[in-house]
């Protein structure tokens, strides 16, 4: 059994990558592997936006990640700099902006620095990027 780091750098609507990452993560868990964490970088951070609203017959990937993370206690780590550049703001960012209600990044997604990616890579056996 191995420990995986999953890195997502593609936006969910501009590539199939974010969905493939979800399926890979789900399958790795089912097959007894551990997930050190999922790190969202570049436009991959877009999936963390709570305001996303898909039409009812379209794939809604956000709740799938949320359910997977909650069920299996997987850290969903979103790079704060990449997220802020793309208008994804955590509660802590919102408090610093003096608009404490205005945020669109919520747990289980966490706003983190790149140091968390390094920790994740150091404690895993293999990383894979989508």
């Amino acid at each position, binding site marked *: 059994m191995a420990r*995986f780091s999953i890195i997502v750098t593609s936006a969910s609507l501009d*590539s199939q990558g974010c969905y493939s990452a979800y399926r890979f993560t*789900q399958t790795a868990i089912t097959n007894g592997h551990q997930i050190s964490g999922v790190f969202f970088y570049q436009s991959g951070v877009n999936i963390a936006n709570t305001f996303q609203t898909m039409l009812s017959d379209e794939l809604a990937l956000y709740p799938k990640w949320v359910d997977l993370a909650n069920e299996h206690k997987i850290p969903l780590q979103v790079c704060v700099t990449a997220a802020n550049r793309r208008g994804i703001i955590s509660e802590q960012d919102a408090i610093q902006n003096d608009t404490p209600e205005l945020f669109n990044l919520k747990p289980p997604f966490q706003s983190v620095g790149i140091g968390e990616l390094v920790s994740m890579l150091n404690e895993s056996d293999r990383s894979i990027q989508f």
Partner: protein
Amino acid sequence: MILHKLSHSPYSQKNFVSLLTRITDKDGILLTQDATYALSSTEYCQLLLKQTVNVYALEPDTIARGIQPVMSEIQLVDYAEFVTLALKYNNVISW
């Protein structure tokens, strides 16, 4: 021993062919997403197999696109086998 994960269409991205020359016969190639369109082309399949016999394609991505593979030497794998492949090689590059 690198697993090269390809995800772009060989018909639209030049990198698909240009990166092949960097692949050695001990490496593996996994076609995913639009890279699976290579399966319907004898020419692309041969280019891939010339570099290494370890060429795989993600079956769900292939079926979803309605692709009919032309060469049986490229093995279709499911997500469980994808996970196994990622561990079999020393590292994975996502091109």
